């Protein structure tokens, strides 16, 4: 076109970013890559092509890792770890700082390479992915520097196996590697097979930074290599990817003590209230669902619009969609680039094609003749049951429905198996701050969307996984308590054949929903003291008793909304009432366990109740200093309904150590009492009954844990299972937990209040930009 013609049409014309330097870098590497193991690139071997999804052209050949490659990488990481940890925080900080600097120095090379490999628009890789990755290393250089001071009782986990997805290749690498290294771990990381190139460039950066050999190891390949890492001799697996694969990893690691964090899928709600700045909310959707072609785990993919403004909002949205430019991702004026791979394109295409419901609008544009492209799509008028409203599409497809009231908005938003992120738009701060905490999500954005920063934790609840990446809260995923504590041991119940010591027979029942309940099965087990006297009978709980307890706990939802002050008062009251009956509990403990430690255990239990009461209104969240005019409130929320198996030992203290912090934080809890010494737990419910604990907040079951563990683990309405019981049950619990990806905590020593408080809370980051 001539200048004269352009003067009339006012088209944008092409504005391509040059790929020359990135392509030259690939050629300089021989266009063939091995793995990065023990500080060196291995010789390229049999593998696969990495292609540019925008053109279909091959960029380089990558090597498929073998078992031996993975073994070598893990061995190198294992060997390097003690020295890396011993280097100390400030020593590690210097390397992380150097990496951050080098990422900055080569920022355009990284950005162009990322766009070539992944298909995302150059604007995004240049302005979002790469700067955020740099920021993550700067931030965690700081965390390394501060570790000795700020986290004196935490130590590195050891070797971390990390598996990352293709949607933000370098950024996900940074999210994984930076905190791991900062805390003194070494890593074996596998990038996604579609998008390994920036990880390999990063390996080169590690060499330039002089990082000690073995601290970072990168192996390439498909899911099979991921499985090898999951099964390798590593101390932790960190995975970001699909819920299906996350579930498989949970099951595959069930028989090990490997730490696990999973950042999985989502179907995140995007709520627009009628008083919102609608134009800005429309623009927010561009960043929510058409950012990175919608291939974002936290994409605002489920639009919920307030009925009074729905039609006007849809009209504005459709008009905005028609302005989106789809095409060559290297063009600086492109909004939507290429889908990462033909397989993914087919998944999206098939899912949308299978639907004939609702009203569909697609951006009116010509898609490039070759390459993997899909037009931005909006489908309005779908009901909640529709598969497209339920399933993650992982593409530029937005589905929408309407709501009538704020509470209906919350119900619709939470009507999903996932819980990663949520967005809400309103100019009313009362509404925003009321709704944000009610949303089942790890991250909530108000009047903005897809804001990320190293200082604010990211991660989900429900089937979106567990663990946080970023912020202080993210460090828990890469550290463990420093000191080894006294391990718990299994205790066999005493046997006996003598009659009862008491004159009148007492019946210990189950405690469900604030009431004493007979066991569904109708079976009881005798409990004998050390000298063989019959102390009483304990009910044998079965799966139906557990089911009833969960229903009672779910009905006690209101507990989570009470104030910390109120919960503290109730915990103090429990302690007070226990103190009043200290003698009775002391004798019961001595009779059950033998010996004379009952008095100490009662006093320790009262102390634990008082400590938890003290924390109830002080275990505060944080206001993270994120680099916007605004704040990210890291709010601690109760985990939800917790099912816990008490240790055999310390039948009162073990019980109280789990109950007190859990309810202090607003959780409801179902406990399997100490197996050999259940009768102190059944005495304890009388204390609960007289201490104003609302019905269903604490529920106590007795009987063999084996009968409960599997049902607990697989129950879909339980949010966490804790076990301090028989280690043989751990595998069952971890495996069963994959059903709804509930949190599991397998304890091997008596839980400390601090650790229990951490397990009893989830950090939700609520981003609140402000300004008038």
């Amino acid at each position, binding site marked *: 076109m001539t200048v004269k013609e352009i003067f009339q049409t006012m088209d944008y014309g092409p504005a391509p970013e040059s790929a020359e330097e990135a392509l030259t870098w690939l050629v300089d590497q021989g266009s063939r890559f091995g793995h990065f193991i023990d500080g060196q690139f291995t010789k390229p071997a049999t593998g696969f092509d990495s292609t540019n999804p925008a053109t279909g052209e091959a960029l380089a050949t990558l090597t498929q890792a073998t078992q031996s490659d993975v073994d070598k990488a893990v061995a190198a990481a294992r060997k390097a770890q003690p020295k890396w940890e011993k280097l100390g925080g400030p020593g590690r900080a210097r390397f992380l700082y150097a990496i951050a600097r080098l990422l900055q120095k080569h920022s355009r090379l990284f950005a162009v390479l990322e766009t070539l490999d992944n298909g995302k628009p150059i604007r995004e890789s*240049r*302005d979002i992915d790469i700067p955020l990755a740099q920021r993550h290393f700067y931030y965690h250089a700081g965390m390394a520097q501060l570790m000795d001071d700020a986290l004196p009782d935490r130590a590195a986990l050891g070797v971390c196996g990390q598996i990352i997805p293709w949607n933000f290749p370098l950024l996900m690498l940074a999210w994984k590697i930076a905190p791991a290294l900062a805390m003194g771990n070494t890593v074996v990381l596998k990038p996604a097979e579609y998008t390994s190139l920036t990880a390999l460039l990063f390996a080169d950066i590690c060499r330039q930074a002089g990082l000690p050999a073995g601290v970072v190891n990168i192996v390439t390949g498909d899911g099979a290599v991921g499985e090898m890492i999951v099964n390798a001799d590593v101390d932790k697996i960190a995975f970001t990817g699909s819920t299906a694969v996350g579930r498989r990893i949970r099951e595959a690691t069930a028989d090990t003590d490997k730490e696990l964090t999973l950042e999985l899928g989502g179907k995140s709600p995007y709520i627009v209230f009628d008083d919102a700045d609608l134009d800005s909310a429309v623009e927010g959707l561009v960043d929510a669902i058409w950012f990175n072609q919608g291939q974002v785990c936290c994409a605002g993919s489920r639009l919920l619009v307030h009925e009074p403004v729905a039609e006007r909002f849809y009209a504005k949205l459709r008009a905005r969609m028609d302005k989106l430019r789809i095409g060559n991702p290297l063009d600086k004026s492109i909004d939507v680039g290429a889908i990462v791979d033909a397989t993914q394109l087919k998944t999206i295409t098939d899912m949308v094609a299978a639907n004939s419901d609702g009203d569909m609008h697609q951006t009116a544009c010509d898609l490039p003749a070759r390459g993997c492209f899909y037009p931005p799509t909006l489908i309005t008028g779908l009901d909640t049951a529709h598969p497209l409203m339920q399933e993650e599409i992982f593409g530029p497809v937005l589905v929408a429905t309407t709501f009538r009231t704020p509470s209906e908005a919350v119900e619709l938003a939470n009507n999903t198996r996932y819980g990663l992120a949520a967005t809400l738009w309103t100019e009313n701060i009362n509404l925003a701050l009321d709704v944000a905490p009610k949303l089942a999500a790890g991250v909530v954005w108000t009047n*903005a969307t897809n804001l990320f920063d190293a200082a604010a934790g990211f991660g989900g609840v429900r089937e979106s996984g567990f663990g946080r990446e970023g912020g202080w809260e993210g460090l828990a995923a890469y550290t463990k308590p420093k000191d080894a504590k006294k391990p718990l041991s299994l205790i066999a119940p005493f046997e006996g054949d003598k009659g009862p010591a008491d004159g009148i027979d007492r019946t210990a029942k189950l405690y469900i929903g604030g009431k004493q309940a007979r066991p569904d099965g109708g079976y009881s087990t005798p409990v004998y003291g050390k000298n063989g006297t019959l102390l009483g009978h304990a009910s044998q709980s079965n799966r139906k008793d557990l089911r009833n307890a969960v229903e009672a706990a779910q009905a006690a939802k209101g507990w989570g909304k009470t104030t910390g002050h109120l919960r503290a008062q109730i915990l103090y009251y429990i302690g007070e009432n226990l103190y009043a009956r200290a003698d009775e509990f002391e004798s019961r403990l001595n009779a059950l366990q033998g010996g004379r430690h009952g008095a100490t255990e009662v006093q320790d239990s009262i102390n634990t109740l008082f400590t938890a009461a003290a924390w109830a209104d002080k275990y505060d969240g944080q206001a993270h200093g994120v680099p916007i005019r605004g704040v990210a409130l890291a709010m601690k929320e109760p985990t939800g309904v917790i099912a816990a198996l008490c240790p055999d030992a310390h039948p009162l203290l073990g019980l109280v150590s789990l109950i007190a912090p859990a309810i202090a934080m607003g959780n409801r809890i179902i406990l399997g009492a100490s197996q050999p010494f259940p009768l102190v737990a059944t005495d304890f419910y009388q204390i609960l009954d007289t201490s104003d604990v609302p019905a269903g907040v604490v529920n106590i079951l007795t009987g063999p844990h084996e009968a409960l563990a599997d049902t607990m683990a697989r129950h879909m309405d339980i949010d966490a299972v804790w076990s301090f019981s028989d280690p043989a049950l751990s595998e069952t619990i971890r495996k069963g937990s994959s059903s709804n990806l509930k949190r599991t905590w397998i304890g091997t020593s008596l839980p400390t209040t601090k650790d229990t408080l951490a397990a009893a809370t989830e950090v939700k980051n609520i981003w609140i930009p402000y300004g008038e």
Partner: protein
Amino acid sequence: MLQPATTSQDAHLPQLTLTRNPGMDLDMNWVRAVQANTSAIERRAATLPARRSVKKDYQAAWLLKAVTCIDLTTLSGDDTAARVRRLCAKARQPVNAQVLAALDMPGITTGAVCVYHEMVETAVAALEGSGIPVAAVSTGFPAGLSPFDLRIEEIRRSVAAGASEIDIVISRRHVLEGNWQALYNEMREMRTACGEAHVKAILATGELGTLRNVARASLVCMMAGADFIKTSTGKESVNATLPVSLTMIRAIRDYHTATGIHVGYKPAGGISKAKDAITYLALIKEELGARWLQPDLFRFGASSLLGDIERQLEHHVTGNYSATHRHPMG
């Protein structure tokens, strides 16, 4: 209902090809429902320049378009007739003829010349035959605090002197006091006083306090019949910005959706770089559409912008970076 003008001979005025904004009754429900989320608007404004890039021939064409949308302005206490004549000559030939010839774009002029009332006759005479309209800043510019009847009279005199565009200033106090009816009445009377001359309402956004006020004032002025809404006098401490522009053009878009009427937009003050001009044009194209990229619906109020555009155009043609002294001053 105001009558659409039909007699103007000036191609740069909206009423020739489009229905002139007749205005409507003040709709307070609409005005009160307007929201403007500052952070979100700033984010959109901040990322826009990185989302759109215009290169090579496209850049040259866009810069030429920008030239045709400039209200070449002098609003100084030391303006003289000779100074205004020099400016008018520049408006007729804003870009070096050889550069225009190389681009095959002869005959480019600026959108208008903008002067104080006292300079209107001089400018009209200097521009005779060029088709370039003269815009006058009337109504007690820049503060708008002279007696109301004198402001109205000033408009009449400027029109009588040959100005075909009148840039009026609103009473900021009406906005700050939330007296939308007073703002509406004032705008309405000024619009009437303009007759067939088209009227640009200067909101002086730097003095309105919030973007929500900017959005509401934009809407009220359009309801009262403004042909254009304009950010600033150039005399406030903060003049045209991208967030303010985004707020105002979204109001224009809503008004268009509701009424079908095209209202023009003029950012003024603080736009001095060619790159900024392209960003503004991209913003208009994105939020309002390409139809608004014509001088009948878009103007830059600028004095030094043209110089930077001339240098960029010469660079485009020759490949050499240019120098200010190579281009005739306006």
